[in-house]
């Protein structure tokens, strides 16, 4: 039974990403076009999920909100992975004072609950995507640094690293060409994990009105707005909740699969 569903998360994730990429060319209505006369219009052939509190097409808003969630999560996770991996690799390879500074620096970031750190940044820089991506990136730098650091510590004493050093390769080249390719597995797993976490954090911030700004479609914002119209139009709330949950569960399941792939010892048996 398991083997038949082995690739389900990957397939679902691919479909979701495809939907995000194709959003501009799909025959969808304008996600921000307001039509006050048709507020809360029920499902129809042209608008399969109906319209929201401003008469905007719900289905198109959902697709664009998904696109923005995936885009923000991917960009911040990418930013965090580049910075975090660089710090972890340098700290783990150079050791000494550099290592103390990078790793203790991460301990400091970890003292702040992620949501609160993001809120501090929003207070200082104001809400919006320009604040959001660097902040979410910063919050998840430590998770990459720790993974990279731990992996480098196991790899650095291997013979091929010794050999590269013996051949006179510089520290920069060794880190980039010899060490990095050998620790990429756990980093990819971490990437998918962090993506799921950023989706959660971004939607939470947007829900509070501190992330993506209206009228741009965002799942968190839509859930927040849906609370006000709970009695008239519960589906305005239910659809974004379902889509957000689906996205997170698919990312989590994909992450588990990746982990099984790169570390077969931890595969299904123990879990």
């Amino acid at each position: 039974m398991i083997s038949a569903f082995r690739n389900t998360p990957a397939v679902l994730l691919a479909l979701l990403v495809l939907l995000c990429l194709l959003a501009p060319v799909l025959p969808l209505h304008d996600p921000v076009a307001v039509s006050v006369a048709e507020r809360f219009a029920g499902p129809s052939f042209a608008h399969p999920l109906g319209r929201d509190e401003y008469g905007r097409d719900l289905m198109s808003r959902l697709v664009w909100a998904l696109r923005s969630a995936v885009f923000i999560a991917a960009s911040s996770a990418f930013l965090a992975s580049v910075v975090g991996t660089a710090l972890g690799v340098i700290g783990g390879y150079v050791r000494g004072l550099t290592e103390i500074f990078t790793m203790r620096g991460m301990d400091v970031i970890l003292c702040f609950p992620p949501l609160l750190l993001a809120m501090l940044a929003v207070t200082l820089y104001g809400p919006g995507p320009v604040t959001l991506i660097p902040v979410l990136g910063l919050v998840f730098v430590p998770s990459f640094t720790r993974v990279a650091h731990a992996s480098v510590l196991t790899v650095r004493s291997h013979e091929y690293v010794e050999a590269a050093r013996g051949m006179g390769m510089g520290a920069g080249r060794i880190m980039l060409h010899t060490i990095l390719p050998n620790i990429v597995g756990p980093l990819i797993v971490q990437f998918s994990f962090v993506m799921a976490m950023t989706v959660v954090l971004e939607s939470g911030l947007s829900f509070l009105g501190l992330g993506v700004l209206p009228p741009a479609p965002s799942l968190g914002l839509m859930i927040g707005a849906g609370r006000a119209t709970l009695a008239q139009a519960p589906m305005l709330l239910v659809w974004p909740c379902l889509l957000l949950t689906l996205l997170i569960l698919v990312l989590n399941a994909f992450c588990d699969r990746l982990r099984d792939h790169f570390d077969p010892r931890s595969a299904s048996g123990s879990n």
Partner: protein
Amino acid sequence: MAWFLHRFLLSLVLLWVVTTLVFLSIHMVPGDPVELLLSQDGGTPDRATVEMIRKDLGLDRPVYVQYADKIAGIARFDLGRSIVDDSSIAQGIGRRLPRTLELIAAAAVLSLLIGIPAGIYAALHPGGLFDRAGSYASGFAQGVPVFVVGTLMILIFSQLLGWMPAGGYVAFERDPAAHLRFLLMPASAIAIGLSAVVFRITRASMKDVLPLDFVRTARAKGLPEWHVVRRHVLRNALMPVITIFALQLGGLLGGTVLVEYVFNWPGLSGMLVGAVNARDYPMVTGVILVVSALFILLNLIVDILYGIVDPRVRK
């Protein structure tokens, strides 16, 4: 003893670094922080207001004076005043923090009551229906964001079924029953995700301990099964559960913000969300300092407890 002292000093250093960073954060903003704080509506703020707030925040003095002032203030539990309504930040936190902690405590108790027995049962019947269902359910519960759980709970239990108030708060001393009624939904919303974590750790930890020799010996002695589980397995399996659980609780200090907001629970979050929206900088940093300090304290307590219970850690 040296280990405990070392651990304690490390926490103090972390606390100092965190305070300094929070202090510096306003100076790391490019441009004039006060103008930036005031310019959220797009217009240029007028000079007099800028000067007033700058004086209020003490930003017109040299940075090192401001820093010394800030540290001295914190030592007296004085976190300054709000720029919006000039209320004392420390007093506001003192009034609201207990409510946040109460919510966390209620959620913690609920999730331990659900997660530990479920985890034990699943570990004792591996591969059974409960074990497999629990594994899927906990993956699901851990994934759904807490504000989605809360919002859907309101939709179902308040809007559709009408069993519960959608949110609010009544002081315990005024009406204990109503107080608990208001507490139940937010606490459950947190407990759903948290009990999934407890379930998973308990189950994994039990599975690590069950095949060990001393468990076999206990069984071979002819002890009844419940006795083996309670006195031999659980005692050894619960330690990692408690540790990871305590660390999760630290994370909750930040996570409750969303739940409190969803259910209008007047804890720290109401203060914080409003302050972020109004860009009330001293208020936001005050709350963040307190929460981070609690987080560091919690980690210290966990470490020290662990050091007492398991002396090998001190090496």
